[in-house]
């Protein structure tokens, strides 16, 4: 007879092992390591919640303290590998295999660990791709998650930084896994129930609140004239041209400059209400002036941002706010919104090759993908129509007609030289050399060239939709690559021909004078200005203050 309830029995067995360590669902901080040693078995798939911003940092620390002779060969499946503890698991021999999405601050350490054979890498995913696999073949046996507060029944309030939590818990709890939550506080009643208590097995009040990293705050004081010029080029050459109403912005300074130019230059161009009305976007402080000026109707968020909570709570017409009055973010749903419901993604990258492929991998860093590949990809399952989407599709096809489908606008904004005079345009992406070195079957590419529709640099726009062959694409890219070696090696005659066809557009072709790019065009030139725009509701972290 087949045993159809093996997983259920195994779960019951593990829960029984820890009865002496818990009172109801509550565990004392000092008992967590012992608990983990009993509920986690060698070879388990474990999700140690590490989101873009929020980390189950206390549980991570406890997991590094388990006895590796008892618990080893774990398979870590989590979106963000950002704490040093996350890597310690591999160093200490507790974990062996890894599937993840994003590594941010640990990007150099991951590259080293991979090189030394400490990590057996499954794959680097995009967010929704990893979340999708939670429900297919990477379902966690144990999930260690973080929430703001819990009641004694285990009902969780995950608050503004809800991020990945509902997805992780859904996959684990409904497949006979075990879910342990660290919370900042155990309370009698949570302000709202983000996760129902029957999906949570154990709760522990962590000694310290979980850390949240401010990732999306760009100080207007650091926006350069070059970035302002690029923002003007994008607004006039792309926003005014295609009129994308639904969009996502990346987190770079060039897109921050666009946000800060909406109420000034965008207003001069008559674009208010015509573009950028609905967003899938993290709570960017630099969007406050545009929101306050009536540009924005609605924003759904992947996560939250430090200092933005009170502002968002006071703008429930714009943000998704619970009945308790605080933001509810959700990474899976927002990523999905960005993939299917947005007409445009515009963001920065580190390297672009001659086919328009882009990557943020450098020889010694693996930063992972996060969400950009989904934001920056044409969703072939999309069937609804918008003006921007159709126009892009028609340009790409070179024709109109009942069967010519649209295209998502995927715009890469890069300054031709990055930090330390590193050229952004290259003959070959560094990620190819890295893949060769590590024996990866597929080099990490952030956005493939066939998804990119436009590249914006300070030298102008390359419209890849209008390119008809690989040579067009190469010369269009060289034609905006400035004084990088790739740019200097352009075929000047071909570039001028592309310019005549409107494939390349220079600032002067768009009626933009280089010297117009002035910081006085920014709707806010400092974080302090953003606070003023927000009517004092935005409370920036101390490191951004100069008052």
């Amino acid at each position, binding site marked *: 007879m087949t045993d159809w309830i093996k997983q259920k029995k195994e779960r019951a067995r593990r829960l029984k092992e820890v009865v002496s360590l818990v009172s109801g669902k509550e565990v004392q901080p000092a008992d967590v390591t012992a608990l983990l040693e009993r509920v986690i078995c060698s070879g388990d798939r474990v999700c140690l919640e590490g989101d873009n911003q929020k980390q189950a940092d206390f549980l991570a620390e406890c997991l590094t303290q388990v006895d590796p002779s008892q618990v080893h060969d774990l398979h870590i499946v989590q979106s963000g590998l950002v704490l040093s503890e996350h890597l310690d698991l591999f160093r200490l021999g507790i974990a062996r295999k890894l599937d993840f999405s994003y590594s941010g601050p640990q990007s150099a350490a991951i590259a080293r660990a991979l090189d030394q054979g400490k990590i057996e890498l499954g794959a680097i995913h995009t967010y929704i791709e990893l979340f999708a696999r939670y429900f297919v073949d990477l379902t966690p046996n144990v999930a260690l998650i973080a929430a703001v507060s819990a009641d004694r029944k285990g009902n969780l309030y995950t608050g503004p930084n809800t991020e990945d939590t509902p997805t992780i818990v859904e996959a684990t709890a409904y497949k006979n896994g075990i879910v342990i939550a660290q919370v900042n506080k155990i309370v009698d009643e949570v302000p709202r129930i983000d996760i129902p208590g029957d999906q949570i097995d154990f709760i522990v009040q962590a000694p310290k609140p979980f850390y949240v990293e401010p990732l999306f705050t760009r100080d207007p*004081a650091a926006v350069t004239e070059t970035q302002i010029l690029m923002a003007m080029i994008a607004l006039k050459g792309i926003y005014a041209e295609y009129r994308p109403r639904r969009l996502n912005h990346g987190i770079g300074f060039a897109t921050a400059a666009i946000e800060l130019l909406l*109420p*000034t230059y965008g*207003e001069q161009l008559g674009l208010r209400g015509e573009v950028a009305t609905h967003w899938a976007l993290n709570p960017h402080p630099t969007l406050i*002036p545009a929101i*306050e*000026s009536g540009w924005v109707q609605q924003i759904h968020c992947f996560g939250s941002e430090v200092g933005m909570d009170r502002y968002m709570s006071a703008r429930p017409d714009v943000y998704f706010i619970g009945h308790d009055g605080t933001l509810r973010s959700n990474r899976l749903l927002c990523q999905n919104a960005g993939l299917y419901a947005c007409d445009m993604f515009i963001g920065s990258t580190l390297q672009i090759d001659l086919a328009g492929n882009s990557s943020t991998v450098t020889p010694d860093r693996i930063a992972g993908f996060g969400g950009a590949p989904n934001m920056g990809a044409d969703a072939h399952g999309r069937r609804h129509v918008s003006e921007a989407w159709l126009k892009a599709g028609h340009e790409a096809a070179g024709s109109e007609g009942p069967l010519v489908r649209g295209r998502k606008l995927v715009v890469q904004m890069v300054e031709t030289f990055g930090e330390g005079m590193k050229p952004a345009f290259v003959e070959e992406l560094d990620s190819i050399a890295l893949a060769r070195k590590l024996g990866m079957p597929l080099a990490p590419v952030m956005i493939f060239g066939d998804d990119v529709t436009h590249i914006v640099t300070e030298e102008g726009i390359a419209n890849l939709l209008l390119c008809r062959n690989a040579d067009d694409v190469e010369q269009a890219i060289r034609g905006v690559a400035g004084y990088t070696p790739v740019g200097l090696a352009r075929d000047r005659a071909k570039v001028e021909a592309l310019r005549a066809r409107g494939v390349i557009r220079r600032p002067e072709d768009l009626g933009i004078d280089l010297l117009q790019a002035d*910081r*006085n065009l920014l*709707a*806010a*030139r*400092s974080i*302090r*200005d953003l606070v*003023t*725009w927000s009517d*004092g509701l935005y409370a920036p972290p*101390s*490191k*951004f*203050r*100069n*008052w």
Partner: protein
Amino acid sequence: MIPENVMNEPSWYELSARARINGLLDAGSFNEILGPQDRVMSPHLAFFDLPPAFDDGIIIGRGMIDGRPVAVAAQEGQFMGGTFAEVSGAKLVGLLRAVAKSAGTPQAVSSVFLLLDTGGVRLQEANAGEMAVSETIRAILDVRHKGVPVIALIGGRAGAFGGGGLVTACCSHIVISEQGRISVSGPEVIETNKGVGEFDSKDRALVWRVTGGRSRVLLGGADSYVKGDISSFRKAAAHARNSVPTLSLETLEHEQERLEQRLSAFGDCRDTPEIWTRIGLPNPAGIADLTEDEFIHLLAKEEVRHDAR
């Protein structure tokens, strides 16, 4: 489209020293002494493989404010941290000595404006820089003694630290904005010497709570508080030179007495909100978060004025 309370005028904090002078003085009135085309530059920086500046980071000259002749010196805070050095120091001292010499003659100026923006002494020429600071202090006191007020305008990126803090304190009158900072030891210096527990230089709210414009003006370390746009500085500059007491023994004794009182009243406080609590300011922890208008209103209402200069 930008609301009135968001500054949309050129900002003192952001502008270069040259642009600050242009905004401060009557249009077209500035006559620069030893300008960039004279190429009076640091002979030391080349030894360190560092590029020089045509004006060595300080601009000196004469001009007009509301038609009255003034002398002006502006440090460029973005060049080498706006530091005191051999050439830049000599330019500043030379200007001040010329002002003192011309006092009472037809070439006299009505006041001197020092647009300080400095981290202190330039490390690559530290001895010359230290000399420059002391010579500057001496020259300022001479100018003040001749009855010409020397007015410091503080609101740049580098603040007024090290020797710049000392020089500022020797001026007749100090005008500061919210972004402006005055101190002798900078936050990083304190942290390096005394540890992060004593002073966390990355906690920028703390840095400004201690050294910033609002705290300085509330404590009498500055005399006038202005919004950070250039025309507010111009207005304050035009007004300040009319209201400055002359330098005398009596002035100095009053100042000494004031500082002694301040030390005995607040010497044991660990942070400025404790001082604000002690002097009974409303919402002591929230001073930094007041809007500019609210803060200026508070200053007027509380009549905070400790300065005897």
